[in-house]
């Protein structure tokens, strides 16, 4: 790394293609992500097939964009989200994540120090997840035309032969498992926005899930469905499974792992934790014969210590998620309509 970025804030010059932009890319991106593909500074990363093909028989390819307010929150920042989110999108297809791209859209006036922190988070998250950020792009938009930083990451992974995970495979009798406490990320973001005088220590659950999924696949190569429960929460994922496979899913409220603090925030605001966002939680549908083995494997992994069975797949009512309430009643858990808004009374 030869060039240094001296500016304290991002200006339009950092997106102009000139020397200021070169300083930014070489110092902040290449210097931080530090790998042979990126440091060649070509327009594309050239990836050797001979290293990839022995690992599986299909490529998985995904992209996601990250916008979050605030950029830094308890338990992570937009950088950790951008890496872990895309790693998880690959991993829930059974893929081993290998390479990521990083597209940054920066708003004029952004502090370079904050950008360095975000990039450092991306680097740390990538190292943890065993993926390499091999290509990228940076644009700067005038002040007021963006919200400080937007990040897009695309990812490539390899799916081992024999793994066939799909929402359409949920079958009656299957067991529904989650890997831990639900709604932590959504509640942490609400707290971090500072609009509510909430006294809680809730941290985002932002984490990469590929290691956990690898352990699950070792216990049961025939996992039927797997999805990370991000926006829309667990309720949305369960509805997607039920509709894709034309089955019903029955969930038992008393088995849903929800922290007291998250329940409290939801009670105060009239929100439902089942719809709160997560950034390190997955929902798995496992054939009943392997459910116990998968659960045990999950609990032995740090990302699955609190794994628990929350319900089962049933034949009817098709396309519906029904919850047995803790109180003894029963209700339908539908898809979220619009966004969750706090009720007035």
């Amino acid at each position, binding site marked *: 790394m030869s060039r240094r970025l001296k500016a304290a804030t991002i200006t339009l010059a950092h997106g102009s293609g000139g020397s200021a932009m070169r300083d930014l890319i070489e110092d902040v991106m290449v210097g931080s992500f530090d790998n042979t593909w990126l440091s060649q500074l070509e327009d594309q990363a050239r990836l050797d097939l001979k290293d990839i093909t022995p690992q599986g028989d299909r490529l998985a390819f995904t992209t996601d964009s990250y916008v979050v307010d605030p950029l830094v929150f308890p338990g992570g920042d937009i950088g950790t989200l951008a890496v872990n989110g895309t790693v998880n999108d690959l991993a829930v297809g059974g893929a081993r994540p290998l390479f990521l791209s990083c597209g940054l859209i920066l708003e004029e006036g952004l502090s370079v120090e904050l950008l360095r922190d975000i990039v450092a988070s991306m680097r740390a998250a990538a190292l943890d997840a065993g993926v390499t950020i091999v290509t990228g792009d940076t644009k700067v938009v005038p002040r007021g035309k963006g919200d400080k930083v937007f990040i897009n990451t695309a990812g490539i992974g390899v799916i081992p032969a024999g793994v066939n995970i799909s929402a359409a495979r949920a079958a009656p009798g299957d067991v529904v498992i989650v890997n831990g406490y639900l709604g932590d990320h959504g509640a942490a973001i609400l707290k971090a926005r500072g*609009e*509510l005088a909430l006294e809680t220590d809730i941290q985002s659950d932002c984490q990469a899930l590929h290691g956990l999924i690898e352990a699950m696949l070792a216990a049961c190569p025939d996992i039927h469905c797997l999805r990370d429960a991000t926006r829309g929460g667990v309720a949305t994922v369960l509805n997607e499974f039920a509709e894709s496979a034309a089955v019903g899913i029955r969930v038992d409220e008393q088995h849903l792992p929800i922290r*007291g603090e998250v*329940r*409290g925030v939801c*009670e105060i605001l*009239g929100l*439902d934790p089942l719809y709160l966002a997560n950034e390190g939680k997955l929902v798995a549908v496992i054939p009943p014969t392997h459910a116990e083995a998968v659960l045990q494997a999950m609990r032995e992994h740090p990302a699955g210590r609190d794994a628990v069975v929350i319900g089962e797949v049933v034949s*009817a*009512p098709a*396309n*519906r998620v*029904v*919850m*047995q*309430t*803790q*109180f*003894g*009643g*029963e*209700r*339908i858990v*539908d*898809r979220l*309509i*619009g966004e969750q*808004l*706090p*009720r*007035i*009374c």
Partner: protein
Amino acid sequence: MKYVDEFRDPDKARRLIKDIERLLARNTTVRHRPLQLMEVCGGHTHAIFKFGLKNMLPDAIELVHGPGCPVCVLPMGRVDDCVAIAERPEVIFTTFGDAMRVPGSRKSLMQAKADGADVRMVYSPLDALKIARENPDREVVFFGLGFETTMPSTALTVLAAEQQGINNFSLFCNHITIIPTIKAILDSPDMQIDGFLGPGHVSLVIGSQPYRFIAEQYHRPLVIAGFEPLDILQSIWMVIKQLDEGRCEIENQYRRLVPEDGNPQALGAVNEVFELREFFEWRGLGSIDHSGVRLRDAYAAFDAERKFALPNVRIADPKACQCGEVLKGVIKPRECKVFGTACTPETPLGALMVSSEGACAAYFQYGAKTRQVDEPAPETVS
């Protein structure tokens, strides 16, 4: 969670339901239809669906979801007025979250925000006042709505604005009052309600005395009910017990929070700041005399209706909507001609589909008939 879990004990619920069944079984009155009990408050409606109470109760009880969702009963013309204020370039329009989605004749506040209006969600009217202090060159308007539950905090905010000399803050007042509304329902010729679960939060402010006319003139029992599932079940049991014993009284199940005489400080602030309007338009129920409040002349400087020229156009409810009949227990939400077809939570035509606390939205969201969940879902469920 202390003070919550105690009221969610399934064993106690089972015992209460057994008690309710026993009372119903020995009721010698010959009935050709189920008992209709109205929960006036939207918070009750929400809890009934959230905890799945509907399918735990015997078929001989029908819960009728009353008019107590202030977002639902807001007329379309008033939403248009909100949008007109919010679209003024100098205005920061502040509102509670669930009012953002209520449709006006042109657009909702959420759509106005997307179109460039400065609409901000707040959790308290005091947050709006803070925004006014921080933005002295802008006009900050708070969209005040709700029953007596939210009225005191709005009144106190207006008083605080006056004390602090903040002159860039005003209130678009759409607060409504519950008693005339219950009376309007009772006066309706097709009314079939046998008893009421009184609104807990409203009663915390007004106490139990204002409901006496319901027992004395209309001979219907009312039990002021809390919002936890055991509160609701116990209140249902108390109403049925009254009917069983041939009594019609106002009883207070929510004694742990609701004083008989209400909250004098809250009532004092409300009476200081607000006066009754001659009439106020409700979605689904039409105009109800003395059912809304406005700012008194002494606080005219904080009245958005006097500060800004408003379209103030009355927009009739869509003809196909049967919200009024649902509110009076004449039909169930799913019997409405447009339920789940033209009228869904995403595209609400009628009042009761607007907020998640509205009866129709709750039916739609939590399953129309959870006792028979294998019933085909409405085709419009996405």
